């Protein structure tokens, strides 16, 4: 069917609209049968350099961590750029290449130019993740890079080149995800850093597979290794940070294996809460009291464990209003042979594991899952799910039924009340095999739909251009510092909550994207600010970026 559709499309393209009207119509019909459609354009877009993560044999857990990316406007030209974090390449116990992070300037047509050299952003530490935000209040996007080693704050000079902050906050060790968000309501960005494992470079270089898995020796961890404490840094203004972990109530009481965090107003009380995905331990949910002090309420909120009361191996995070009740729900990806978990938000920080009810149990069970997003790729008004997959053990290739080391990623189309796995029908972009981890979401080719950048271990990234059938109109609300935006159109309502972090060690376009289904205009757009003030716009035209400022 796909071949026929492709042939029809080719014929339509050759013949032109006027010459082959029937063919064009048939092609359009065939195209509309595609649930979603993605094409990997990384090579033609100029992204051909691999990102490294240790040795091919992966004897240490660090080598399965992968590296993050940011899909953000770092050069201030209104176009999304791509920042790719890089790790080190090892052979035996020798470092043979310290991979440099790369900065690619987006051209707005889906292609990128490598501007790493001279950018000041091409650090060669063993990179893990990256977060972006304006930490010094000068109107441009700065970068915070988590490393295995000292973390790195890169201040944007305003022209897309960067300089190291004199004193970088962070962790000197294995930090994974990080989040920049205004925790204390003072209008600057504070920093939370997830600490994962306490280990040294010597231990990594000299690691031997110690754990028995399916009768094979594989890397040890995370159990058997020591957790590393999360840390929080308050921005004292101008991008100067001081540690305030305990003071803020963010003490890592369990020294859990924290991978990733997401920050957003989960209970609509006008402050930003924090959710932390922990590997093999209960997840944390920190409620903000509005003054930058947090209370850990994970277990009673229902969002720390799965429906059976079990801690899972939390990896990636996404947020979005899946059931369109106006509240942000949470999606957490987990290890292989365990489903991703969808926590539906019932208000007042009460969550219910609704994985099975929404059809996610079976399709997400087998793969080992990392970065994820809840995004409306076909603009039909319902959020879809993309999940990056890949095993941590290369030995998985020898185990039938494990899904292998390199795995295909997952795409699930959202409908009212359920998700449907459409990965096998979603184009060549979903046929790519890799050990995928981080992902960034944003419109790289300025056509209004959301594309994806995905990092792969020891391979070049995947750049997935969204060629899905358009099932509706779109709106992109550019409202920095807003907590959420609400859209009313065609008798329906959508709410998008602004979030920081999420994905997996990655940063996506922070603007609020709405797929609206077949509507011709937006009746009302409401933007809610942290002080409770609202900006209301009426009769807004669709299919455009709407800048809203306080």
């Amino acid at each position: 069917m796909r071949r026929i559709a492709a042939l029809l499309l080719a014929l339509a393209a050759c013949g032109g609209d006027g010459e082959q009207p029937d063919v064009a119509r048939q092609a359009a019909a065939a195209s509309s049968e595609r649930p979603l459609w993605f094409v990997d354009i990384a090579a033609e877009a100029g992204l051909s350099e691999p990102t490294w993560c240790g040795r091919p044999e992966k004897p240490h857990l660090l080598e399965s961590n992968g590296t993050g990316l940011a899909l953000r406007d770092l050069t201030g030209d209104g176009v999304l750029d791509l920042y790719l974090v890089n790790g080190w390449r090892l052979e035996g116990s020798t470092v043979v290449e310290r991979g440099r992070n790369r900065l690619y300037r987006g051209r707005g047509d889906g292609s990128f130019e490598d501007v790493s050299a001279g950018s000041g952003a091409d650090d060669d530490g063993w990179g893990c993740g990256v977060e972006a935000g304006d930490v010094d209040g000068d109107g441009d996007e700065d970068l915070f890079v988590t490393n295995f080693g000292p973390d790195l704050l890169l201040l944007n000079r305003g022209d897309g080149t960067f300089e190291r902050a004199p004193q970088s906050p962070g962790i000197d060790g294995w930090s994974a995800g990080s989040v920049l968000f205004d925790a204390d309501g003072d209008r600057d960005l504070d920093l939370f850093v997830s600490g994962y494992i306490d280990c040294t470079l010597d231990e990594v270089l000299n690691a031997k597979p110690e754990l028995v898995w399916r009768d094979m020796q594989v890397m040890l961890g995370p159990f058997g290794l020591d957790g590393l404490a999360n840390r929080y840094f308050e921005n004292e203004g101008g991008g100067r940070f001081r540690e305030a972990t305990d003071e803020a109530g963010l003490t890592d009481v369990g020294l859990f294996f924290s991978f990733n965090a997401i920050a957003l107003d989960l209970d609509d009380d006008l402050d930003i809460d924090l959710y932390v995905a922990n590997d093999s331990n209960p997840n944390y949910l920190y409620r903000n009291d509005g003054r930058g002090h947090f209370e850990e309420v994970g277990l009673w909120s229902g969002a720390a464990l799965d429906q059976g009361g079990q801690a899972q191996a939390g990896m990636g995070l996404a947020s979005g209003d899946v059931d369109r009740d106006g509240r942000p729900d949470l999606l957490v990806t987990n290890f292989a042979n365990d489903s991703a978990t969808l926590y539906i938000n019932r208000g007042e920080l009460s969550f219910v594991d609704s994985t099975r009810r929404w059809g996610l149990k079976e399709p997400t069970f087998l793969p080992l899952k990392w970065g994820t997003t809840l995004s409306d790729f076909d603009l039909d008004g319902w959020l879809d799910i993309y999940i990056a997959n890949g095993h941590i053990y290369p030995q998985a290739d020898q185990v039938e039924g494990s899904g292998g080391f390199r795995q295909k990623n997952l795409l699930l189309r959202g409908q009212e009340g359920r998700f449907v796995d459409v990965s096998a029908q979603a184009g060549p972009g979903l046929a790519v095999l890799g050990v995928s981890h981080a992902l960034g979401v944003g419109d790289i080719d300025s056509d209004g739909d959301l594309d994806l950048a995905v990092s792969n271990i020891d391979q070049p990234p995947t750049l997935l251009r969204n060629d899905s059938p358009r099932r509706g109109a779109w709106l992109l609300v550019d409202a920095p510092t807003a907590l959420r935006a609400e859209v009313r159109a065609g008798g329906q309502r959508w709410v998008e909550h602004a979030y920081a972090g999420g994905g997996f060690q990655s940063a996506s376009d922070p603007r609020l994207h709405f797929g609206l289904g077949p509507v011709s205009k937006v009746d009302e757009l409401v933007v809610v600010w942290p002080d409770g003030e609202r900006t209301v716009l009426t009769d807004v035209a669709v299919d455009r970026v709407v800048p809203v400022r306080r």
Partner: protein
Amino acid sequence: MKLQLLAAAALVAGLGLVPAALPPQTTPPTMAATYSALADTILALKKTEANFVRSVVAGHFHGAQSYVKAGDGAKAAAEMALFANEGDNAMAGVRKRLLEGGHHHHHADDTAQGEYDAGFVIVTRKAKEAAMAASAAMRDAKDDAARQAAWKQFSAVAEPLLAAK
């Protein structure tokens, strides 16, 4: 064959390799007594751990009871969830540390059989699921009758655990 063995034994004895009269080979009684005292301490610690965790969950039980009486279903539900999980994530962190140090309150077989989650002391897996369901019912309760029904469901699970010694 028997004759050969006997001959070999006689030869060994004749060569003086085995003393004619063996002294009694025992662990010094003082060492056994010390170990016995240590065992008392170990066993007492295990009992102390159970009593301590029981008092933690009892605190959450009574907290939930108070909130139910005050008509605050959300807070009651939260206390019930903390009962089900034997405390909050700080308690879970202690459990993690104990497990990593090789300490299982219940024998590993019990955990493997699914009676208790790893590291749990008082609340069985079955009771945990039931208490979490009651907590969810309490959170959803729209009126006092519904709250009372959820409380009844919860206390039926919780009270036997608190009473058990």
